[in-house]
């Protein structure tokens, strides 16, 4: 995995279309679909936030990072808002850390300014059990006292294990618990192409952005 991108996918050059079978899984949302979702979410955020100048996006790595960056660009385009974008690694707050022998690798945390009195919007790629969001909320509280916390999930798979609901959803993705959904980035550089892919359990490599 690259520190800035989503989980590293295959390096296909040609863009793929939604519902088309990719070599390594079924594409649920292609890059254009993800762009449309994030533009709609930007409008929804503006509509629902009373004081949008207090917005603060916090990406959950790795998949949340490119999504939060795009969402911030959309907010600038739609409402001329410059919204801070932070990155918050939730690994050290996970509830299953010490249950296995091998510890997961840590990812970067970078919070550019204080979160106090801001409306923090957590941005994640795939939300499933809700445990990552729980960990992210705990981590966030160590950085201050936001006046509200909301969540954007590009894909909502259901299968919640905690009482957490998303405020903004890119796409509802009904899946079997054994399947894996992950955000892949194709190509490298500043603006990699993104796509949301459904993998069957057999093909899963253990690197997906499940949460």
């Amino acid at each position, binding site marked *: 995995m690259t520190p800035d991108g989503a989980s590293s996918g295959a390096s296909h050059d040609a863009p793929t279309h939604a519902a088309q079978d990719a070599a390594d899984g079924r594409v649920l949302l292609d890059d254009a679909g993800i762009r449309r979702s994030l533009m709609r979410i930007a409008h929804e955020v503006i509509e629902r936030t009373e004081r949008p100048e207090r917005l603060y996006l916090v990406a959950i790595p790795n998949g949340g990072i490119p999504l939060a960056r795009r969402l911030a660009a959309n907010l600038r385009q739609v409402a001329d808002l410059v919204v801070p974008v932070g990155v918050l*690694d939730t690994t*050290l*707050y*996970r*509830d*299953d*850390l*010490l*249950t*296995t*022998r*091998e*510890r997961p*690798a*840590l*990812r*970067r*945390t*970078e919070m550019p300014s204080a979160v106090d009195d801001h409306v923090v919007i957590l941005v994640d790629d795939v939300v*499933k*059990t809700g*445990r*990552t969001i729980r960990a992210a909320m*705990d*981590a966030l509280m*160590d*950085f*201050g006292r936001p006046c509200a916390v909301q969540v954007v999930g590009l894909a909502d798979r259901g299968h919640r*294990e905690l009482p957490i609901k998303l405020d903004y959803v890119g796409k509802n993705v009904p899946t079997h618990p054994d399947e894996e959904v992950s955000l892949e980035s194709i190509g490298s550089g500043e603006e990699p192409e993104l796509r949301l892919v459904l993998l069957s359990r057999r093909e899963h490599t253990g690197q997906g952005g*499940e*949460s």
Partner: protein
Amino acid sequence: MIQQSLLGIEDLEREDIERILDTAEHMVEIGRRDVKKVPTLRGRTIVNLFFESSTRTRASFEIAGKRLSADVVNFSPSGSSLKKSESILDTARTLDAMDPDVVVVRHGVAGVPKRIADVLSAPVINAGDGAHEHPTQALLDCFTVRQEKGRIDGLTVTIVGDILHSRVARSDIYAFLKLGAEVRVAAPPPMIPPCIEQLGVKAYTSLREAIDGADVVMALRIQNERLTGAFFPSVREYSATFGIDRAKLRYAKDDAIVMHPGPVNRGVELSHDLADHRPSVILDQVRNGVALRMAVLYLYAGRRPVGKRETE
């Protein structure tokens, strides 16, 4: 991959070292927060078992453990049970019965952490044993060099001082060699162990040759308490020939950094001026020590699987 206990750098693979350094990279950020604490080791117990006195290393492990929310218990048997002639292994077994999740051990005799690890079910972290190894010091040295230079591969690291009695030197030699640096050692002849070059280092008795073109100059502490025999005529002469000052540092690279595991004998291994100012990075080493030990505790603590749960 990473073994149950961290007893020495000699046992580690390059990937293990890099994984610890990469983890420490992220731990640095926690030290910059207002709330310098994460819940990772909540409810876990770390025992600092220090048979040999130590302020800095023990405090560093203690702060590291507390930043990870562990309960840290300091245990210095020299003061208590050892006087009642309890053997080291009995002490270890007693501790084990209290169910710690990590035991950090320092002892004046080489090999004691290994013997303790053999009887404990908890992982053991060696915090220095005799003249054998001091792995977390070497790891924080590598971390500091990587932070300063951006890499370790291809650098020249010169270690100056009592190589013979130094566990720091031994661990540093293993660590820097495994990460691809060229390592040189320099000292008066009696302080250079025979066959040291078999480890893959070059030994020098001329400081000037040893630091010629070096990227990193590491001065070791002259440990008066360990020096019994005639290792050098006088402290003054040692300081004149092997003490690092700005004049001698001119032979090293222009951007060379100076390191020291501390505490510094000012005016002996390092000039007063260098002990406090760039290019020495001694306080960075101390600061990084906490992050590095957090990484070690994170990676080694409680390495006992308690049933698998499917959580994502």
